[in-house]
């Protein structure tokens, strides 16, 4: 596994040439103190050359679990963090990603962070990671609790096409605003 610094690029071919199926896992511990649950959400934006979604169908999240090509699949919303291991998972079959999609951006947000006045530092053991689904090898991980404590949303990283190969860029950039503003930023028509 590689420890990521912000903006570092990893060539998946070099790092893990066998990569065909990607698993992006988001995990956190359920709240033990009293108060509103911590509800973290993993999402994926499928972006064209202009850095925007081609259509709203390219926004994969808890209310839209699959893309039309069947290349990206979100396994479902976890509202509390209950359970062992990854609490939310997005699978990507790189070979099925439409050619005009140049970048897959993965984000994590806290549901109703403003209203509930929560941030990642209040959540125990929150992380997001990128794994080779076939070998179970972890390629990148970001410790949200420790390293993004005062953030409420984050762009974790981007898988992008480069010379017919997929590369991963660890972005690790906190985002000021929730999933709505983030989606609008990627060109999604959010109601």
């Amino acid at each position: 596994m590689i420890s990521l610094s912000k903006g570092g690029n990893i060539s998946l071919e070099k790092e893990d040439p066998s990569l065909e199926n990607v698993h992006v896992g988001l995990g956190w511990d359920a709240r033990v103190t009293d108060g509103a649950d911590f509800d973290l959400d993993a999402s994926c934006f499928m972006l064209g050359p202009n850095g925007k979604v081609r259509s709203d169908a390219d926004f994969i999240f808890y209310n839209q679990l699959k893309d039309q090509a069947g290349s990206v699949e979100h396994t479902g919303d976890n509202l509390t963090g209950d359970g062992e291991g990854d609490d939310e998972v997005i699978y990507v079959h790189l070979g099925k990603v439409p050619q005009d999609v140049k970048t897959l951006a993965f984000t994590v947000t806290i549901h109703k962070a403003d209203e509930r006045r929560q941030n990642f530092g209040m959540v125990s053991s929150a992380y997001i990671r990128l794994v080779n689904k076939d070998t179970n090898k972890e390629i990148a991980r970001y410790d949200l609790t420790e390293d993004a404590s005062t953030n409420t949303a984050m762009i974790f990283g981007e898988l992008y096409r480069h010379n017919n190969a997929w590369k991963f860029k660890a972005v690790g950039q906190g985002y000021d605003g929730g999933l709505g503003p983030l989606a609008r930023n990627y060109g999604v028509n959010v109601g």
Partner: protein
Amino acid sequence: MDLLRGHRGKISALTTSQVIEVEILCRYKGKGEVDISCFCVDSDNKLSDDRYFVFYNQPKSPLGEIVKLGAQEANKERFRVELNRLPEFLKHVIFVASIDGEGDMSFLDSGYVLLTANGQELGRYVFKGKDFRQEKALIIIEFYRKDEWRFSVVGQGFNGGLSALLKYYGGEEETDTSASAHEPTPKTTAVPVPAPTPAPTPASTSTATTLSQNGQTASLKGVAPVNIALTYRRSPSVPKAELRLGCMVELKDGQKFMLQTLGSHLGHKDSAPYITAQQNSGQFDELTIYKPEQIKRLLLFTFVYLAPNFAKDFGAVVILKDKNGNSVRVPLLAPSPSQKFCAVATIDFDNKLNIKREECYFTNHQFADQHYKFNFNWV
């Protein structure tokens, strides 16, 4: 630096000092007042040694690593924490505020926690009643080990108050009766007991080492049999109390055993664990190790029988002695007034027996097992 709820970071990013002063104020407008205390928990988030609970009745930890400073003021406390001196098994230092009276934390007028080192302000977290709802006890801030000491501004709590908070950490709320245990033990004459079985005259080359600080180590060449004896005084404050001796052991082949000088777990000389426990009417109990080379690791312990807790004046000493008369003494210097079980020392073997002083107190055998991870099947 202004700190926010949820804020985390490395202490080393704030200061080069490992001595941090923590001042907490909670201005409360409800009926009653706010008690502020500090305690440490282990890697399982458990309050396994309540000598590290620092509050008005116990103003410092055993070695003064945590000290409550200044006169008691309503709703306000100051603590000095020497992070680098805390025992390794303690992973979190937790500062809590709890309401003694009516209402909840939404009745707070305002409050803050201020961190300083060498008189310099490192950070300040300011909070208000509207930050909370029905919590009656709050974790304000904590220090924790993750590669190095870090801080976390928690600002979360429990509606059930201090008892709910402590229950989460495996502890119980201090009641008035247990608080009296912190008062000095009445001065009465302790009944001295004669020395244990006379030891063979030590050879001129034999060594005698006393381990008086936790973590300190010593070795015995391991010439079998190795005798381990417990001595202590009967305590007038708990006249019925007896101390018993025992060990949890994992052999090189993976087999695990627990032996003690009580009940039927007395071990075997000629088969695994090659250790026996001899009960001598509850006084001068002994263990004998016949094959030290079979030991992977061993936890030596003593526990209180026929009384609820250790007495301050037991003056207990555990002495390990090999066949050549080399000895290692482990005196118990800081008996926990509220616990029954004491992990005395850990032992492993690599051509010699390596003994490391622990003196760490637990509620019972099972909690100690959880900490040392022998993973016995408790029923």
